[in-house]
């Protein structure tokens, strides 16, 4: 989103008008949002009642208030904030996205209600307000700011900030899932992106990075508290929990693959096969009437067997290929993914022993139960009924926590350093005594093991296991989640997984173009932002070898991680 700048002479001449103009724009935006936006009450939730703002109108007000904060920080009571944050850049980004938001609102009302006539005066006032704000933001002069790493607030305030942001995430996620209307969902995404971009431009996000580095434990606790509370916000509805638990399986697999791709730098294109192997083990050892193996161990054993089975497959595939040129790995894993699918397809009793029932797969896998706790039943917690998918959600959350822990601890260990060294210069690493082959195979096997565990749970959650769930495209999707989010990062991959799994659920109207856009997305990401949305500093440097400035900026961040 880059808009050509206005000539500097013009800005200096009219710079003083930016402040009142901006406040006027924000005011108009708020007043307009309090009025009715649309004649048709059926569109975008209900935006037709004056002085009772609907969801999207509240979002517009929030955008306006954020803009006011920026304005008051450049001149006014919040000027101390302005010394730290780059208010001019933040305001520019915010105003741009606000204008986009309001434009889309007008377009959405026009398209959905049939005609521009359906936009009420309130909508126009807000739209004009956004335009005025946009104009004002172009006139704001950037100011010198101080290094945000030095901005330290009292400990409890910083913790409070983390908690508030986490709570915001929770309600944001719950709200997003409750939006059935595709337009409203897109507008919400625009809102979130706009806020995030503005915060990034203003430097608030990097400040948040420093804060979270100081309060790591609080952050981790808060994140999991939020994740655990999420089902309680659904008021007993299991529909969204079904999506949420699918997102979690996907994210868990992506995080496992992230160890292989993001940390060790090995391109595994058949990763879904390891998830599938785990799922088939889970199914074959379950008490389903169609299960093919007589042994019925407790589930915890099944999970471990599934993990070990996948890891063994990983070892078989990895040991010949990891010794040779790395490019071969991609194609051999791709081939392995196909072999796996074909094998599961073929083992139907006609073309080999009947282990998988071929294309029909293993259906009717019963729900898990630990003691008297059956995952199929609805349980009541704090007066809120939690049904089947909520139960799986909690279990998957534990798995996710485990995988994240494995990822993080490996990353910050001797082994993680070895992986980085191999990525940087394999020959030099070897000459320094790093066990290249051993470390590569370790990454490969750990990745496979984790996927196997996730697969065993997935089998129960999905009720049936069939070969066509484990096709190449699924592997490509997992890879895309990593690329989109940011290789080698935890937050990035979570974001990537959520986006890739949630968008198709919510935007069904583009279902047909889903894969087309997905392919395009991979190409464009590699071209313009190969390090992903949330970049690991080191990865960013690897993808931008020439960028000396970036290297200087990144230095502090990387050193901070090393010292931690």
């Amino acid at each position, binding site marked *: 989103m880059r808009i050509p700048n206005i000539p500097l002479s013009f800005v200096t001449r009219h710079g003083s008008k930016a402040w009142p103009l901006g406040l006027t724009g924000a005011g108009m935006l708020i007043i307009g949002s309090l009025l009715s936006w649309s004649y048709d009450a059926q569109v975008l939730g209900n935006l037709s009642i004056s002085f009772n703002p609907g969801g999207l109108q509240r979002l517009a007000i929030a955008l306006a208030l954020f803009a006011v904060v920026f304005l008051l920080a450049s001149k006014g009571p919040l000027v101390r904030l302005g010394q730290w944050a780059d208010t001019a850049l933040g305001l520019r980004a915010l105003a741009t996205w606000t204008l986009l938001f309001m434009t889309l609102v007008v377009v959405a009302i026009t398209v959905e209600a049939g005609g521009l006539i359906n936009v009420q005066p309130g909508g126009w006032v807000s739209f004009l307000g956004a335009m005025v704000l946009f104009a004002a933001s172009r006139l704001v002069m950037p100011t010198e700011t101080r290094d945000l790493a030095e901005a330290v607030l009292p400990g409890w305030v910083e913790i409070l900030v983390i908690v508030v942001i986490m709570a915001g995430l929770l309600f944001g996620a719950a709200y997003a899932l409750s939006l059935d209307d595709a337009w409203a969902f897109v507008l919400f995404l625009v809102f979130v992106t706009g806020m995030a971009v503005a915060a990034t431009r203003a430097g608030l996000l990097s400040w948040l990075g420093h804060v979270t580095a100081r309060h790591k434990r609080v952050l981790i606790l808060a994140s999991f508290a939020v994740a655990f509370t999420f089902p309680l916000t659904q008021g007993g509805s299991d529909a969204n929990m079904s999506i949420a638990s699918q997102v979690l399986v996907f994210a868990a697999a992506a995080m496992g693959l992230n160890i292989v791709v993001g940390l060790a730098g090995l391109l595994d294109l058949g990763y879904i096969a390891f998830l599938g192997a785990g799922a088939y083990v889970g199914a074959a050892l379950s008490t389903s009437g169609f299960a093919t193996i007589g042994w019925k161990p407790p589930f915890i054993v099944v999970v471990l067997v599934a993990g070990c089975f996948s890891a063994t497959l990983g070892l078989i595939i990895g040991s010949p290929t990891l010794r040779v040129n790395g490019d071969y790995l991609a194609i051999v894993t791709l081939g392995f993914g196909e072999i796996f699918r074909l094998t599961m397809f073929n083992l139907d009793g006609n073309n080999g022993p009947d282990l998988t029932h071929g294309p029909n797969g293993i259906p009717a896998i019963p729900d898990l139960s630990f003691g008297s706790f059956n995952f199929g039943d609805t349980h009541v917690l704090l007066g809120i009924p939690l049904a089947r998918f909520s139960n799986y959600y909690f279990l998957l959350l534990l798995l996710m926590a485990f995988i994240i822990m494995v990822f993080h*601890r490996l990353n910050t260990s*001797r082994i993680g*350093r070895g992986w*980085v060294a191999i990525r940087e*210069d394999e020959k*030099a690493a070897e000459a320094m005594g790093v066990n290249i082959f051993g470390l590569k195979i370790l990454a490969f096997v750990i990745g496979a093991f984790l996927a196997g565990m996730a697969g065993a749970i997935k089998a129960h959650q999905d009720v049936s296991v069939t070969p066509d769930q484990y096709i190449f495209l699924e592997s490509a999707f997992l890879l895309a989640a990593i690329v989109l989010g940011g290789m080698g990062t935890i937050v990035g991959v979570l974001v990537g997984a959520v986006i890739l799994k949630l968008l198709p659920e919510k935007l069904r109207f583009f279902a047909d173009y889903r894969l087309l856009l997905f392919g395009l997305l991979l190409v464009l990401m590699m071209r313009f932002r190969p390090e992903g949305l949330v970049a690991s500093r*080191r990865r960013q440097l690897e993808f931008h070898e020439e960028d000396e400035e970036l290297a200087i900026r990144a*230095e502090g961040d990387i*050193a901070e991680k*090393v010292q931690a």
Partner: protein
Amino acid sequence: MTATAAASTAGSSTNVPLLQADGVTMRFGGLTAVNNVSMTVNEGEILGLIGPNGAGKTTFFNCLTGLYKPTEGQVRLAGVDLPPKPRAVVRAGMARTFQNIRLFANMTALENVMVGRYCRTSSGALTSILHGPKFRREEKETRTRAQELLDFVGLGDSTEHLARNMPYGNQRRLEIARALATDPKLVLLDEPTAGMNPLETRQASDLIFKIRDTGLAVVVIEHDMRFIFGVCDRVLCLVRGETLVEGTPEEVQSDPRVIEAYIGTATDEDDADKAEAGAGHNSDAGKGSAANDAEDS
């Protein structure tokens, strides 16, 4: 010849052989890059390896460190045969630097040195994931040792700098620190002063003495004759893949064959000094030339 040179000849070298290379030969297809070269390095000794461009010095280095498997001959470190695997060689106690610096560019100085500790630590995946007591102890030791080594080579202040952001001379030092982190008995330095100014070169020779004084043996490849003759206890001259002369700096310096190898023919003993200067010049001119590249590969 400076005062430091005099000190070095009186240095602490003993006559216990540490590294023994016997009849090392390396052929690439029809080309014999190294032909029947033998070399002995004693404990606490600084040995210089010189020779014109394309003489096979780096190839010989690669044979010693296991990067190449020599066509013939064997290498023994402290009486044990070295297998031609870089990792095994490092574990046995021989570490190296590279002619064209090969640091881990996007890692900090500290991390680079910590990677050097890899082969002397053994925390596996499980203890790393569980943060077991062994992991914590090793991690702490690794960090302390890495910091010590950075201080030792004079980079104590640059701990948090990314390798790619460091000035050239410091990158050379960092590479030496990384090699020292593997707890070697012997370090091989491949052109440690290439591209350095006279001040940096002097600092480099001080560092090499300092390393020797900790009880390690050092092998140095260099083009800069002044540097080599000032630092080394013994010098080996390779020409066209074969040993031409081996002896003390004085012997090698005055050997007419060496002079001939470097500047063609020498008619007069008095030309020795000029030859030396000429050789130093030659090293600069030869950088990046085709012959040099061929030797790298």
